[in-house]
């Protein structure tokens, strides 16, 4: 059993490791969402985007959620922004990189002996790493929400954005980041090099993204989507207000917990030659 003070110290150590990437991604998410509102205004309150949107195939419009939430509304424009591949790539890179650094990275840098030779249990180490990653995911996702609301406020469009919907999307995105972080943690716990952990995690996440996309645009493969984490992340539904998000959130949270538990079990069983 690890001493609470030791676990607290380790948590601060892990938190500190994520400081720079966490702040960079949070700043990027904040800036991106502010910019999205500015672009919406620049496109004539999305009118030009709506014209462009009409040329998008129906399946893709359905995938983006703009079949029911037009691009000439700020909500529709924002909902596309919240699932823009660039934003998702930047945000999901954070838990993937951090989890790889906090477990496999410690092995690779040969710094693990400093920790494992102290009375800190391995499960506590995984829990500490997971908590630190969760904190930075919350900061990054929250920064995106703050950017959306700040952008709308600056452009005088606050009335067009429901803070409740933004909060819901933010929490949905946070749970998606946690679920991705859980997979990252599992591969990190099983690896001795960060590149291995990142490589395997990115491969799985990309496969899931493609699986979800395929399921959305190809009716014959519609059932496959349930196996993808991205199936449970749908910003447009929060703006439409027609969706009970509990199932999505529970699936993502459960995925994060199960993979983190497996990560702890793997880390606990490993022999370390550090």
């Amino acid at each position, binding site marked *: 059993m690890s001493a609470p003070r030791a676990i607290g*110290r380790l948590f601060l150590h892990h938190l500190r490791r994520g400081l720079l990437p966490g702040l960079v991604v949070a700043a990027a998410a904040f800036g991106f969402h502010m910019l999205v509102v500015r672009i919406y205004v620049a496109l004539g309150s999305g009118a030009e985007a709506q014209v462009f949107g009409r040329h998008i195939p129906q399946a893709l419009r359905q995938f983006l959620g703009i079949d029911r939430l037009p691009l000439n509304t700020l909500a529709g424009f924002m909902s596309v922004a919240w699932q823009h591949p660039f934003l998702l790539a930047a945000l999901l890179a954070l838990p993937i990189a951090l989890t790889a650094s906090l477990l496999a990275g410690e092995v690779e840098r040969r710094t693990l002996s400093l920790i494992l030779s102290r009375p800190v249990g391995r499960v506590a180490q995984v829990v500490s790493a997971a908590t630190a990653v969760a904190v930075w995911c919350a900061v990054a996702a929250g920064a995106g929400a703050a950017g959306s609301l700040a952008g709308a406020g600056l452009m005088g469009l606050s009335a067009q954005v429901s803070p409740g919907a933004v909060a819901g999307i933010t929490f949905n995105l946070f749970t998606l980041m946690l679920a991705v972080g859980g997979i990252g943690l599992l591969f990190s716990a099983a690896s001795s090099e960060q590149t291995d952990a990142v490589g395997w995690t990115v491969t799985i996440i990309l496969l899931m993204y493609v699986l979800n996309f395929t399921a959305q645009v190809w009716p014959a493969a519609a059932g496959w989507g349930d196996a993808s984490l991205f199936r449970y992340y749908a910003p447009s539904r929060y703006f439409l207000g027609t969706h009970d998000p509990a199932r999505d959130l529970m699936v993502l949270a459960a995925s994060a917990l199960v993979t983190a538990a497996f990560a702890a079990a793997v880390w606990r069983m490993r022999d370390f030659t550090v």
Partner: protein
Amino acid sequence: MSEPVVVARGLTRLYGRQAAVDSLNFDVRPGEIFGYLGPNGAGKTTTIRLLLGLIRPTRGVVRVLGQTPRSGSPLLARIGYVPGEPGLPGHLTGRQILNLCAGLGARPAPLRGWACDMLGLSAEDLAKPAHSCSRGVKQKIVIAAAMQHDPDLLILDEPTTGLDPLVQSDFMDALREHRARGKTVFFSSHVLSEVEALCDRVTVLRDGRIILESAVTELAAAAERRLWLRMPPPVRGAVTNPPAIRGAEFLRAQDDWLLYRVPAGHVQTIIADLADIYPLDFRLESAFEEGFLSLYRRTEGEAAIATPPEPS
């Protein structure tokens, strides 16, 4: 007699079919500096990983301070560890690393100042990020981190690597001081002279098996000596007709020095004979290292020296 600090019985660790260590039996007594000697690949570091619970034994038992070592065990708070190839978090300063290690141990660090002074770690050294420190400074930080909480057992894996000779000497004095406070040191090394100078007992490892256990004083007493004599001119005459010394064998001349081999147990005889020879100067050196290496080579290819029976 107090209980041993470390007890290994039949300790075996296999990697696949290859035994990294095989049927190790040894005890480390309280208040001693225990030398663990062997060349690279002999199994020293594997033994240390077993002592710290970083890996599990395939067979056998190991007990440290009366407990089975496991990750996260409070036992680890009583141990200080200097790894063979340590890594440090490059973004942290030396002081932050010491704080981190003390915090993870959940124990105060009463010896930090003493350890830093002894190792010559200055405030400037401790204020620099680890990535910008020299190898020697990094090694000093790791040693200070291992000693700062006054551990009951220090486990050192080739700790003098990267230290300059002056600091090495101070470090060895610090280990003696640690022993004088009743603490125990497990000192793994492949440098014979360090073990001879520092350790009370030595266990020698070859290919994962113990081939020798002895008190260092016994080993040193059993070792040959080399006697160097500086004779008055003309030295050439002395070379062609070196003075006879009972029990000693003349080997060669070097500049104006003559070199003799003195078997163990003949020291008193040669001192008596030196009085009749009137050398200008003389030096008597232990051939501990040569003797040890000769023993080591003799065991090469032979079965390992029988180890004590495994416990029930």
